[in-house]
């Protein structure tokens, strides 16, 4: 015993046990740096290449940018949570389309038409409920069967799309309600309705992820599922909730977008899952889960929309747009990796 006491007395080594924490600012700020780069590039390149009379950095153009980021943006925000969980949802595009169909079609139902403009909030609720229900199905299957979310939602990406077509064959589903359109096109304090929804969603989700038990558990589960289970977190219901949340958000995205456009093709929303995932990953969220940030995802969304917009602005043709978007994605990933390096002392595995 006496001997061990001397152990305690022995001075601990003076290099602290705490490793140098990685700079959150650099890591999470990377995407915003990229956004700024894009802005600079397109305004300069636009001077020479664009046929347009207005500047790229025009305020109205930037407000439009936010608005146009909304459809994929709202989905990407939800995808962030699902991915922090260590899952993924490939069915959001189909969920988006099916919710849109319910939104527009429900307004043509006789009893809804009798309600006049009150049909609008009801139609929203129907659409949001549809999205939530589809998310529920995904979540339940993931929970109860234990099949990987990638596979479950790859399947429902097809299956939900099948339902979309079942609803109305190959026809678009349309209902143009000008009250609704006017609401959706409105600007409040300069921001479009869609922008408010995007920013509102971002704020709420940011609070959820940083402040609430649910949000923190999402990180824990994604980071170390076994540890979370061992600590008594009910992982299955937690997944279920998050799948319902992303279903809800896909529907919200549809509500925001189709309120304005009034018609949905059965193909709408295809590839949205890939764009949303891309935005999330550009924002630095780890595909394996456990790490990520809502705000950075917002950056990822803006970066993508900016790229599309800017390439159009400078007059790039289709093949160039494809090539450039693809290569830029990779380049951003590369940069992000360089920024995240721990230096030459890093373990090479």
């Amino acid at each position, binding site marked *: 015993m006496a001997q061990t006491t001397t*152990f305690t007395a022995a001075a601990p080594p003076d290099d602290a046990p705490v490793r140098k924490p990685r700079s959150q600012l650099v890591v999470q700020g990377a995407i915003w740096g990229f956004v700024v780069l894009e802005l600079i590039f397109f305004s300069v390149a636009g001077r020479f290449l664009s046929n347009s009379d207005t500047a790229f950095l025009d305020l109205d153009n930037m407000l439009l940018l936010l608005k146009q980021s909304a459809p994929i943006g709202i989905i990407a925000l939800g995808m962030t949570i699902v991915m922090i969980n260590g899952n993924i949802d490939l069915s959001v595009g189909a969920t988006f389309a099916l919710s849109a169909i319910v939104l527009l079609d429900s307004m043509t139902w006789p009893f809804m038409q009798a309600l006049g403009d009150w049909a609008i909030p009801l139609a929203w609720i129907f659409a949001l409920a549809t999205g939530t229900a589809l998310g529920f199905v995904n979540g339940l299957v993931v929970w109860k069967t234990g099949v990987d979310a990638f596979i479950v939602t790859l399947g429902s990406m097809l299956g939900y799309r099948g339902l979309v077509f079942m609803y109305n064959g190959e026809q678009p589903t349309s209902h143009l309600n000008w009250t609704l359109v006017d609401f959706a096109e409105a600007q409040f304090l300069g921001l479009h309705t869609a922008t408010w929804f995007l920013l509102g969603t971002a704020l709420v989700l940011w609070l959820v992820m940083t402040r609430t038990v649910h949000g923190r558990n999402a*990180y824990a589960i994604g*980071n170390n599922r076994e540890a979370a289970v061992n600590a008594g977190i009910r992982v299955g219901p937690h997944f279920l909730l998050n799948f319902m949340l992303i279903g809800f958000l896909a529907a919200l995205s549809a509500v925001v977008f189709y309120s304005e456009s009034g018609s949905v093709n059965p193909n709408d929303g295809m590839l949205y899952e890939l764009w949303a995932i891309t935005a999330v990953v550009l924002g630095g969220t780890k595909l394996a889960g456990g790490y990520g940030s809502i705000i950075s995802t917002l950056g990822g969304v803006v970066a993508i929309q900016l790229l599309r917009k800017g390439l159009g602005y400078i007059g790039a043709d289709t093949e160039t747009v494809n090539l450039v978007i693809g290569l830029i994605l990779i380049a951003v990933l590369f940069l992000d990796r360089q920024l995240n390096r721990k230096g030459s002392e890093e373990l090479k595995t």
Partner: protein
Amino acid sequence: MTDATPVLRLEGIVKTFPGVRALDGVDLELRPGEVHALMGENGAGKSTLMKVLGGILQPNEGRILIDEAPVVMTSPLEAKGKGVVFIHQELSLADELSVAENIFLGELPRKRFGRVDWTRLYATTDAILKTLNVRFDARTRVGDLSIANQQMVEIARALTVSPRAVIFDEPTASLTDAEKVVLFDVIEDLKAKGVGIIYISHRMEEIFRITDRISVLRDGQYRGTLRTAETTEDEVTQLMIGRSLDLSRSPVRHALGKVALEVRGLSCGHLYRDVSFSVREGEVLGFYGLVGAGRTEIAETLFGLRTPSAGSIRVNGDEVRIGSPVDAIRHGIGLVPEDRKGQGLVLGMNCRDNMTLPQVDDLSTGPFVSDGAEVAIFDQYRDRLDIRTPGWRQIVGNLSGGNQQKIVIGKWLSMRPQVLIVDEPTRGIDVGSKSEIHNLIRDLAAQGYAVIVISSEMPEVLHVSDRIAAMYSGRIMRTFAAEEVTEDSLIQAISGLEPEKVA
């Protein structure tokens, strides 16, 4: 304390896995305020039994009684609710979260609307950390902590609730003595509060220091319970492995050959600085030091996994550049890493394939791998290391912790590298196998191989080494010859105290 009603009783627990009867009618009784050791060889079923108790696994047969009332525990949450806290053998933490969030994982304090009560969380955590005498705070990201400190976080979980029973599954496997002392204090405190403690360890000296009773498992069967005060190490060993161990065999010293590996002025950023040493053929060089002293990083550098910022490495007198493990293996260097789960094993792959992975190219005939040769190697080392597995097809992830470690050791022993580095080789290994591994290391040296042993266990270093390098904070403070070393001088060296000052 001795004859109070038990807090916890297990009756006739049976648990089978495909091809394995891991528990075969085990009984166990835990009284309030006692520290009850659970011992047994690797794969005896200790962890499995505790997982049953912790609600992680469901037994095929048998009952669990808490305060003499039968309970069914189908999840860790339920077990926790009934006052059973489980500190796992394998680290079970979320790297990206803070220390506080990890300690209160699953039960973060809430305010309204499901918000986390951060103030309360951090305050409570800091209070707990204070009793543990650690040097990090509640907000530290767990991934930024050393393994030992992570283990302390794991231990801190036992202090968050007022448990009826706490299970420690090999908590000291990656702790050094300083932290161990803290752990033992924690255990004393719990004990004083009347909590029953189950303590699993392969280290006899700990068992005899802190436990009140010892229950022994063997091949999934209950072998009996002994009072610690009334028994001896030999008796426990006898019960565990059915024979007594000859621990007296002291290492044979023999003639050394030429210098196999020589390191001069090696540095790697702030991890370690200006390290020089050499190992001869036939020699075992021990590296001893506190956790974080940089021993592992040196090993990783020699194995081509880190780029040194200065210094040179010579193998057989020729300066070499080791850029990757492939290079290292080509130069005859092997490494048994310290983190078997993360670095040592492909958990989803079978035992044989894991063991032969580094030499799979050499074992092939023509373009194809040679099954026969591989199985032969596996069989040979399974026998030598006494690896308990139903067969080579068993998935490594299904083996007990100690048996997994043996697979990693077998992997490198079978490679017969000229210089073998073993980092914490007997972490989690039972007493019988431990001495077997020590013997193997000595035998290897006797055959003319050079061996570097990194260990945080002083008896181990003292027992197997011909020379011992004592490290402190990234530097080799002193190198001792086996004959001249004393425990005190070693402790001084690894604590950064200059010999003069002590003298």
